[in-house]
């Protein structure tokens, strides 16, 4: 949050008649203390540097432990070794192709899950009959741990791409449904009424009042969904996969290659960060109207 300040040392005092001309020296007002402007208190280290210091320190500690032999290589490889292996995996093309496979699975699952989740939420949120038909079954199904459905999905869809996409779809659907539905039902009734008084049609109300009002909730749901999509991907790819990041990890486990496992974990983490960045950008773009607290 930015706060605007009066310029320091104003040319003339506001109450010059009382305090006298010129600037009062220190100690002229015993018992009073200055109100320090927030800008003066702000640290001189830029924010991005402060934020990167923590992870870098952790990395240095890890390298130190590995170098001194406290951390054995077959327990956890050193950061230097991991960087080296990571580079090898990239240059021989196995990591990029695994990433492409995994990304395609997540994208497909996200598309299906978004369509299903948002569609159901719109039906349940906008229509009383939709609520009666959809909400109870969805609330019931969402309590079933979707990972537990993997065996069933393998029986239904075989061991190809279909069960993997289905698991991700399922994981994505519920958080989106819940948040979009709650967003629709959370729209201020006063605004709906105002829209009615302005002569908006039913569809106009949905388009101009209900849907924009549900957008913050929908984006929260999307953020949850993205997190769960990666989670579901890890599970799906460790069962009967012959490609993808999860497959690389399973393979590495069989050869006790902790360095490859860590590389894969780092890739997962960065993909997750990227997804989060995308949603944040979307929020900044779509929710700039929101009069909410943005932190100091």
């Amino acid at each position: 949050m930015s706060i605007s300040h009066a310029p320091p040392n104003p040319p003339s005092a506001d109450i010059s008649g009382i305090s006298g001309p010129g600037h009062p020296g220190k100690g002229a007002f015993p018992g009073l203390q200055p109100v320090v402007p927030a800008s003066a208190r702000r640290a001189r280290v830029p924010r991005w540097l402060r934020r990167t210091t923590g992870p870098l320190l952790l990395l240095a500690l890890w390298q130190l432990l590995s170098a001194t032999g406290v951390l054995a290589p077959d327990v956890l490889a050193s950061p230097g070794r991991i960087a080296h292996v990571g580079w090898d995996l990239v240059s021989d093309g196995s990591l990029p192709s695994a990433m492409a496979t995994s990304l395609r699975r997540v994208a497909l699952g996200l598309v299906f899950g978004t369509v299903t989740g948002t569609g159901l939420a719109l039906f349940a949120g906008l229509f009383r009959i939709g609520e009666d038909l959809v909400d109870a079954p969805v609330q019931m199904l969402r309590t079933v741990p979707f990972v537990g459905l993997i065996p069933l999905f393998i029986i239904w869809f075989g061991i190809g791409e279909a069960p993997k996409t289905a698991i991700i779809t399922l994981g994505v659907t519920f958080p989106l449904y819940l948040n979009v539905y709650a967003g629709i039902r959370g729209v201020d009734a006063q605004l709906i009424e105002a829209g009615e008084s302005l002569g908006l049609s039913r569809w106009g109300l949905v388009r101009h009042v209900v849907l924009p009002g549900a957008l913050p909730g929908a984006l929260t749901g999307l953020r949850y969904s993205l997190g769960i999509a990666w989670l579901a991907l890890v599970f799906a790819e460790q069962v009967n996969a012959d490609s993808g990041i999860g497959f690389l990890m399973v393979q590495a486990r069989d050869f006790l290659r902790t360095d490859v496992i860590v590389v894969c974990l780092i890739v997962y983490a960065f993909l997750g960060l990227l997804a989060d960045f995308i949603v944040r950008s979307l929020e900044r773009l779509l929710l700039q109207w929101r009069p909410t607290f943005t932190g100091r």
Partner: protein
Amino acid sequence: MATDVHRSVTRPAVHVEGLTRSFDGRAVIDGLRLDIAPGEFVALLGRSGCGKSTLLRILAGLDRDIEGTALVPRRRAVAFQAPRLMPWKKVWRNVLLGLPGRPERAVAERALDEVGLGHRVDAWPKTLSGGEAQRASLARALVREPDLLLLDEPFGALDALTRIRAQRLVGEVWQRRGCAVLLVTHDVEEAVLLADRVLVMDRGRIAHEQAVGLDRPREITDPRFAALRARLLGLLGVDTATETA
């Protein structure tokens, strides 16, 4: 019960007869009768809970669980106590919201100019002050060119200085537009300042009626103004003996 008869020669802008609205069997509006002439400024006073806001909502078409007759013009607009701007639309889009066809931005600009908000056309509602938001809400009502303008305590949430300016603005706009206005308020001074006729609502009916024959612009310091104010406060059950003395 006093009802309007001397305007029956012209077609009224609002005609309400035998209007009843019940909540859980309790009649909040009970056989109400009301006529408003075209271009007339009517203020509706009453204690809180007397049904004045319910009446306004019925006339706005927002409450249809009614019995009896309520005839209103097709073109009517409401300004609520809270501005109720859509926070996700810029001010000018808020003003045009719900207008038929594809109105141009210039239409909104004209309406915002009229309420002195021409410089905030492109602002987000969250950046408006309370008075500015209320003026935007008024512009949104005016752009519909209503034959009946319904104002539900539109100045209630404003600070004293802003309120005086907003009242003056509504008075000017009304004189320029010539639409009928129903102003629901609990501020007696405001009612006497603006209205041609002040109605006092009690137990679901129009219990009293008071024509305000003062010339405009009206002065609060006018003794006739004070007398009217005291009389209306008396009808509302507020003892003004110390003031009239």
